């Protein structure tokens, strides 16, 4: 097919069921005369009404329930919720509890990033249908990924009872804090994981990524003293600076015209990018020295800023960070005097944003005088990124129009996977109308 022919024709690229993403979604790209007229990432995850399910529940029940929005990043949901409530109720937790929460988040980042890099994303770059297929040819690489994922899961299991939907996060702290001796067995595998993560950075830095440049507005938490998990201010590459409870001063959810989809936009209607690449760009100074060094060695900071395909590298650098910080946290860990401080509910608005592996996750609850939720709003990173994804698709698509359909579709899918979209998270953006010419 020549360029002229393809330009003349109208073409619809469809990926019925996106694979190696979490949840169910599809992609429709409509091209007319070489121009993309429609780019839409569609979600057909069944609605589960989480914002309603938490109504009338107590804060601790809410923490258990919202974890179920996503099996890959339940901790992120628990963290945004617990900080929202604690902020609203004026609860001050023990510093060791704060450290333990960072360690818990490290576990989730390690697990999620290792999963995404090795099991979901790397096969794209290397031309395999799955990590299992990849393992036939490069078993050590897949085993490396699994090793890191396992240590992330082990951190979660020790702190929270199990890796998926851990049970110990409570308003005021934890239902139980581990003894020092319980964290000991993590040291050796974490040391190994640190080496594995460095190797991962070397591996992914050497991959070939499609040439694609765009400079989206990037948004992430920023904290002067630490790489952001639970604290810091919401900042952006264009100068935003907000408390994590004030997300809705700068952003809002909008209904995409002609559809049911709720996307997040800045108040001026712009799209923005969340996630590892944004964090690396905004928070590079706060990376763990080991991670900073590894990043510098690649010399690819700019590539991360401008080419979303390099989010895999950003993720790998964060993997080093999370592992290195986990080691430090374990070294300096002392069990809190009180695993959970006593608290009482206050009516008001409980809002907070934390950094899920995929980016900023915002929760907002209206709490009544009995401490029960009256209204809830949950804005997951994927629904915030969706605008940026579609922008990217529109811009990137012309470059693949000359490729055979299979390959073109693969490139588009790979682009979507670069965002690590978590579709089951996206509980309330939903597009059921399929526009076809």
């Amino acid at each position, binding site marked *: 097919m020549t360029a002229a022919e393809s330009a003349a024709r109208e073409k619809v690229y469809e990926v019925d069921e996106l*694979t190696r993403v979490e949840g169910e979604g599809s992609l429709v790209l409509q091209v007319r005369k070489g121009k993309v007229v429609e780019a839409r990432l569609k979600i057909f995850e069944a609605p589960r009404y989480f914002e309603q399910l938490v109504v009338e529940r107590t804060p601790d*029940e809410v923490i258990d329930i919202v974890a179920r929005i996503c099996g890959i990043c339940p901790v992120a949901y628990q963290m945004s919720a617990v900080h929202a409530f604690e902020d609203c109720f004026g609860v001050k937790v023990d510093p060791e509890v704060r450290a333990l929460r960072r360690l818990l988040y490290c576990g989730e980042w390690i697990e999620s990033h290792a999963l995404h890099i090795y099991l979901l994303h790397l096969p794209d770059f290397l031309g395999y249908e799955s990590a299992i297929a990849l393992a036939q040819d490069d078993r050590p690489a897949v085993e490396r990924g699994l090793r890191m994922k396992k240590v992330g899961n082990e951190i979660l299991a020790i702190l929270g009872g199990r890796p998926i939907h851990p049970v110990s996060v409570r308003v005021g702290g934890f239902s139980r804090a581990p003894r020092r001796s319980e964290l000991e067995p993590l040291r050796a595998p974490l040391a190994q994981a640190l080496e594995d993560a460095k190797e991962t950075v070397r591996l992914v830095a050497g991959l070939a990524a499609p040439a694609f440049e765009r400079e989206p507005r990037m948004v992430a938490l920023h904290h002067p003293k630490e790489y952001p998990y639970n604290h810091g201010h919401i900042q952006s590459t264009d100068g935003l600076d907000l408390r994590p409870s004030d997300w809705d001063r700068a952003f809002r959810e909008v209904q995409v015209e002609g559809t049911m989809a709720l996307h997040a936009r800045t108040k001026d209607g712009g799209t923005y990018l969340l996630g590892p690449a944004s964090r690396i760009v905004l928070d590079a100074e706060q990376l763990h020295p080991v991670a900073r060094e590894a990043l510098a060695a690649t010399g690819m900071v700019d590539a991360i800023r401008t080419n979303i395909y390099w989010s895999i590298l950003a993720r790998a650098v964060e993997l080093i960070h999370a592992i290195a910080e986990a080691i430090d946290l374990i070294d300096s860990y002392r069990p809190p005097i009180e695993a959970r401080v006593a608290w009482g509910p206050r009516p008001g608005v409980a809002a907070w944003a934390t950094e899920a592996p995929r980016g900023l996750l915002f929760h907002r609850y209206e709490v009544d005088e009995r*401490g029960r939720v009256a209204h809830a709003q949950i804005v997951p990173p994927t629904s915030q990124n969706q605008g940026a994804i579609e922008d990217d698709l529109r811009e990137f698509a012309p470059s693949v129009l000359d490729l055979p359909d299979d390959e073109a579709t693969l490139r588009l899918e790979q682009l979507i996977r670069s965002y690590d979209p978590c579709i089951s998270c996206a509980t309330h953006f939903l597009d059921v109308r399929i526009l076809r010419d």
Partner: protein
Amino acid sequence: MAAMAQKADRGRPGEHGHAARGGTPRPRVGVVKLASCDGCQLTILDLEDHLLELSEHFEIVDFPEASSARSNGPYDVLFVEGSVSTPDHLRRIGELRKQARVLVTIGACATSGGIQALRNWADHDAYRAAVYPTPEYVESLARSTPISEHVSVDFELRGCPISPEQLIELLTALVTGRRPQLRDEAVCMECKRRGIVCVMSAQGIACLGQVTQTGCGAICPRMGRGCYGCFGPREQANAAGLARWFQASGERSAEEVGQLFAGFTAYAEPFRSAITDLGGTRGARRSGGGGFIAAGGTGAGRASYLAGTRRMEGIDDDGR
């Protein structure tokens, strides 16, 4: 591991001389989801130490979360995650059943309807309207239901999420062709074996361990809190007896006791009846519903005896 890695002939069962599998192709395995959080299928990927070994025993033909390779059956073993929650699910589950020789439901959503089944006590339209600005676009059924309400199920793995140990046991049993050994007993048994001090007797924390099926490793009591029943009711669970005790001993109101059962396996009997007997779910009442939709019913079949008639009791504890 190294020895296994040599097995390049992926279509073959290997040379272990296992009579049952000798000469036959690897079983074709599918993993699909309906309404769920993906956590149970993630548990398969979390079998880090066994994942590659597994792929030698099974041919994974459908696992969208992990592989771009697609098939639409047939399956020797099909793992289904999630509850039946949309008209499309209704259609798909029937087709999937036809394609599957052995159908295994994994997790609380698939085995009991999941947390989203709390809407079964509520007014579905009110729920839809509360979350979505233009609810008429949203295709969802009034009730979220377990797979077994629609098609026959060969095995079920409980839990929110499922236990990796039980998953391995099931897979191993499928490989060997024996019956999986999954205990049907109270979480308490696991607590006691592990030497965990009972949080209910020693701290007065409400715990559903006694009526909940084991398998999780008693993680909640181990973590200093009460079991919230995510593995669902065990055989002959005396939920009514426990509910009476909670009310009599703990000075908890019927409503609060109902909330204890209104969790991730709320729609599984006898938890379902316990919740209904104790007045339905709080959230449902707040949203203007409060009725309970009779089994098999649509919106029209909703029993009205609770709807709007029950005022919320003024309970003011909940520092928990």
